C-alpha cells in the first residue's frame, strides 16, 4: 500500500492478483471495493 494512497486508487492483492479500488482512506488502513473490470472503451 503506498504511503500517499488516495480514494480511487487501484491496489492489487499480492496473493491472488485481484484489483480493488480504495473507497475510503482511514486513520489506520483503507476501505476497499472490487475494482471495475476493463471496458472496451477504456484507454487514453
Amino acid at each position, binding site marked *: 500500500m503506498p504511503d500517499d494512497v*488516495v480514494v*480511487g486508487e*487501484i491496489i492489487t492483492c499480492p496473493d491472488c492478483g485481484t484489483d480493488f*479500488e480504495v473507497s475510503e482512506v482511514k486513520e489506520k488502513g483503507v476501505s476497499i471495493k472490487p475494482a471495475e473490470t476493463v*471496458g472496451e*472503451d*477504456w*484507454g*487514453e
Partner: protein
Amino acid sequence: MTTLALMYDRIRWEEKVLTKTAEAGGLNVNRVDAKTVSLDSDWSIEETREKFGDIVLQRCISYFRGLHTTAFLESKGLNVINSMDVTLTCGNKLLTTLKLEKAKVPTPRTLLSFTEDSALKSLQILGYPAVLKPVTGSWGRLVVQLKDKDTAQAMLEMRSRMEGSLNQIFYIQEMVERPPRDIRTIVAGDHIIAALYRYAPEGEWRTNISTGGKGEICKVTGELEDVVLRAAETVGGGLLGVDAMESPEGILVHEVNNTVEFKGAASVCDVDIPGAIIEYILKQARR
C-alpha cells in the same frame, strides 16, 4: 483561489502526480469520481461551477464516460480540457483519420467496412499485411496484424462474433514499413512538452508501453514538430498524446490520445511533464 476539477474514474500514477503538482502550483484540486456523480440538467452555470470548480481536467479512462461528462460540463459553461469535440474525435480512430486526411497531415491509408465479407474486400484493395484495429479503445488492445488471408478470415470472424456494435466496425489500416519503434509526443497547446521513442518488446510488433514497450528520449526534429503540431491543431488542440511513425516517406501520425498517459515518458524524459501540463491548465484558466 482557482479550483481545478479533476474528473476521473480510476486514479493512476498520472492523476496523483497531477494533483500534487496542481496543489503545489496554487490550485485547489477537487477530485471528482465520475462513477459517483449524478448530473442534473436543471443546474445553473453557477451551481455547476460551485459543485465542480472553475476549470475541469478530464481524465476518465472510459471514453464514453469522459465524453458525456465533458458534454454536460461544457454545456454548463465550464472550460473542460480537453473539449467535447476533441474528445469525440480522438476517442474514435476513424474520426481522427478523417480529420488528419482533410488537413493533409500524413497518416496511414485506412479502409472501413461493416461486415466480414466487405472487410475481406477492403483487404484485397489494401493488400497484406494490414492492421485491424478497434475504432475505439487504446493500449494496443485488439490491434492485430493481418499477415495473410487465412489470418484475416480468422480474426474477422472472431471480431464479428464479439458483442457490442463497435466490434462490428472494421477499421483496417495499411501496415507501415517502419523501424521497430514509434514516437509518442505529449503536446500542450502549440508546444511539444516531451517526445519519446517507444520500442516494441522482443516478439511483439506493437510498441505500446502497456504491452511492454520500452521508452527512449526522442529528439524533436523540425519535421516531427511540424507534423505533430498540425495533427494536434486539426483535432482541436489541448493536452494530447500524438503518436507518430517514421515511414520511408517521412513522419506519419497514426493516433491522437485525448487523456494522455505519461508515466512512461516521465521515466525517460528530462522534462517536468506534470509541471508543463499544470502550467498549460493555469494559462487556460486565466483566459
